[in-house]
């Protein structure tokens, strides 16, 4: 995002004296906070003036009140959602990397999975919620199972492509240097595929959260989804909004944490592959 700098707008010149004291990074932070404040103000205005049905849209302050008054219930719901999410995503990541590596290293397996992947990729796993409820009943196991099924595909697809795209020269060099199968896999194939795998996991973790809350909403199996549904049915819009905001913060926190982990452990991951802003 920050490789390209546009020439400063001429109209901003008069402010340059006061701005000179801030580094570009600080200036960005100030602007980001400003953006959040503006968004909150717009939200406050649109609900206070009744532009939107006031029953549906509560003010930021009321939402904050909703969060405070239902603190413990919210915390329990968040933990339940996180638990199902973590269970599902860990299975998906392990299975996706394992099977993806095996399939990616074999030409026949690669060709044989092509059509299945093309069909499963756009299939919304969310459509399987009713079937998952039928097979596994309501509970954490069902949620985690469906989450891992949904999150498996991005990890698997990216691992497969990443493993397939390892430079042949690199592989041959490693072979000449005497690296054998497992060593070759750990030292060469997986590290060079890891940026692709990381992108897959990045997609998978937010998809997994979407699936988790969807199961909770449709099946009423506890967690944040059910919390919000109950608040809506109980006609407590401020509590409902509080839950939604917490859901957003949860999603945001998870993706930030993962981005940090990637920067920390896969520094060779190039900018070009990154798809997020």
């Amino acid at each position, binding site marked *: 995002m920050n490789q390209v700098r546009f020439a400063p707008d001429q109209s901003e010149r008069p402010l340059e004296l006061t701005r000179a004291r801030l580094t570009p990074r600080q200036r960005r932070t100030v602007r980001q906070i400003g953006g959040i404040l503006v968004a909150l103000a717009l939200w406050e205005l649109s609900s206070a003036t009744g532009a939107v049905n006031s029953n549906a849209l509560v003010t930021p302050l009321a939402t904050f009140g909703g969060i405070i008054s239902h603190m413990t219930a919210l915390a329990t719901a968040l933990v339940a959602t996180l638990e199902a999410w973590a269970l599902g995503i860990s299975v998906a990541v392990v299975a996706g990397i394992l099977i993806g590596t095996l399939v990616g290293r074999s030409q026949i397996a690669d060709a044989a999975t092509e*059509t299945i992947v093309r069909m499963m990729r756009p299939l919304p796993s969310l459509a399987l919620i009713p079937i998952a409820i*039928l097979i596994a009943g309501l509970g954490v196991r069902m949620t985690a199972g469906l989450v891992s099924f949904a999150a498996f595909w991005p990890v698997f697809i990216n691992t497969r492509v990443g493993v397939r795209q390892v430079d042949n020269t690199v592989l041959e060099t490693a072979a000449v240097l005497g690296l054998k199968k497992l060593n070759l896999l750990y030292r060469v194939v997986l590290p060079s595929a890891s940026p692709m795998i990381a992108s897959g996991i990045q997609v998978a973790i937010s998809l997994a959260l979407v699936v988790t809350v969807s199961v909770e909403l449709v099946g009423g199996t506890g967690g944040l989804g059910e919390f919000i*549904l109950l608040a809506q049915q109980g006609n407590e819009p401020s509590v409902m909004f509080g839950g939604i905001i917490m859901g957003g913060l949860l999603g945001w926190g998870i993706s930030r944490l993962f981005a940090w982990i990637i920067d920390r452990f896969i520094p060779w991951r190039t900018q070009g592959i990154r798809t997020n802003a």
Partner: protein
Amino acid sequence: MISRKQNQTRQRKLSRLAVGWLGLVIVAALWQLLAVTLHTSVFPTFIASLVAAWKVVTSSALRVDIIPSLERTAVGFLISVIIGITAGMIIGHYEVVRDWTSAVVDFMRSLPTPLLVPIAIVIFGINGRMVVATIVSAAIWPILINTANGTSTIEPTMIDTATTYGLRGRTLFWRVVLPAASPQIFAGLRIALSVSLAVMVVAEMLGGGSGIGYFIANAQQSFNIKGSYGGVIVLGCLGWIFDTLFLSFERRLLSWQRGTLGGSFDV
């Protein structure tokens, strides 16, 4: 000589395709086998599910559920495309706007969208408009973010060259900025298309009143288990058709950039 070489690549492509379909057949056979051995009502055989899917398509469900779902997805996707590309261009082009909006955009796109369905139900009621609104709230983000990224990372030399040649304003936009950002925009559009389908299903399950998501959930609740599987198969086929159509459309529209950029893979 050339024709033989072409023949060879074509043959290799065909055999790859054949193996691909063979993989699908194997999965279907395993499904069939597993269902026959387990013999439970919650897991019908592959053939029974296919028959159920055929029944869904040929029954009144086509008109009552499938077509409304397609309409909602199309409308929601189109609205997201228009808003997403416009806003993405502005955000990508002006660094100030990018800084001001980045935190809010980051939050909004991390929010698991199905959580918004209860609000959408309160605002719009149980109908198609609610589904469209939910689709837009989810599908807009991949488009917006990819457009902004594509626009902000355009090679400055390219813009400078175009300006030197006297292109500016609208011409610069249509001839340089939009084409240069289009590969990224298309990547975002493809994600948004599958997101639209997914969110459509959940919104309809929770309160669409009709539609394919409603159909699947309803079939399960009324113990029409085969119907539920049939609905999922129909949806899977629709997703596959959408994705294939989109890819061929993209290939045609972006044919000029094939070969200019490396490593465009097909997954």
